[in-house]
């Protein structure tokens, strides 16, 4: 499995972080990624309402993953509404663990950083370094 990229989408649907970790997928301009992230946010909200057999008392989570030819995406929603989207190669394995690791790094390097403003673009060297280490471990 190769990780192609990571997006972090704020609860309002804005892209706050995006990095590419391989050159398999063609690089996109930032504006395109912003738009795509916005669309994904919308689709996620719609899918959450479309659950065919809703379980009473349980809130439907919405889109969890999508697949295209040769690559796919995994969506992880935190309880506070932040979404992590990982673009990966197929077949994939161990994505759930990876998602938890990313969430952990996010909690440590972003949420505990006094210079970060919630819902604003992530600008933390520590976050990037830690992610880079994690991703090069996975992609190796």
């Amino acid at each position, binding site marked *: 499995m190769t990780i192609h990229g990571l997006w972090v989408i704020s609860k309002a649907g804005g892209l706050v972080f995006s990095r590419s970790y391989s050159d398999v997928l063609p690089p996109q301009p930032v504006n395109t990624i912003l738009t795509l992230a916005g669309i994904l946010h919308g689709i996620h909200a719609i899918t959450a309402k479309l659950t065919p057999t809703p379980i009473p008392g349980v809130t439907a989570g919405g889109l969890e993953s999508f697949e295209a030819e040769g690559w796919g995406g995994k969506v992880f929603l935190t309880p506070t509404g932040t979404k992590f989207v990982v673009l990966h190669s197929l077949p994939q394995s161990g994505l759930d663990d990876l998602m938890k690791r990313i969430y952990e790094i996010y909690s*440590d390097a972003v949420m*505990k*950083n*006094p*210079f970060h403003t919630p819902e604003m673009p992530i600008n*933390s060297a*520590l976050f990037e370094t830690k992610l880079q280490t994690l991703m090069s471990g996975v992609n190796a």
Partner: protein
Amino acid sequence: MSSAVGYSTTPPAGSSRFSLASSSTSLYSTSQNPSSSTINNNPNRRESARSSIVPIQQQLFGGTAQPQGNVNILDRSINKTKGSEMALSAWAFIFAEVIAYSQSRSDSIADLEKRLSTLGYEVGQRILSLVLLRNTQASNLKDPKREHRLIPILQFVHTQIYKYVFGKPADGLERSSEAEDEYMLVLNESPLSQFISVPKDMSDLSCESFTAGLVEGVLDGLEVPARVTAHWVGDQYPDHPQRTVILIKLDQKVMDREEALGK
């Protein structure tokens, strides 16, 4: 003995350095020391306290012992540290909030560092009292030790204070090669600021100013006035990108005293 005098505050004369108030009745015979004395003559107290060891806070503040698990911070035993450690995450969040708060009230990086340093100073003063008290009690009040020479004091900070605050001694204590009165405490990775990523436009800022203030507070309490500052040197050490040096610039008065005391 009646229950009304159950919470006497007078430890035996001569052996205590921490009595606050004296009351007319003492529960302790002179051979007992306060930290290990048991109360056998007060049934109410014995019921409520699970252990027979009387926490020093209760002697000082007259608190009532509660069942363990829901104990007021003032009712805890002063010597028992196991289980009362704080989660690093909780600390990280509160420290982040402290920095954000200070930042919103300061107009420059120097001002922000000053504010953090001032907060650290207050912490240092309190930690010093606590560590000294614990050491005194650990030595059973027989041989209370308090360093008075410069090098042992710095080693005390390097080992005991750092161990208390960070869980491990500092990674190095060095004397500056340029100035006689400058010493450096090195910590390769501080738990305090390990999650903090300083933005580029504030790259001069060292959040370890808090630690610097803490060290200054401790040194001041030991009668070693000094100007303490924190400097990030991680760029020179690729292995330790968070390496920080706490620079201690001693007051001239300290150097004079050291010289007068001689070897």
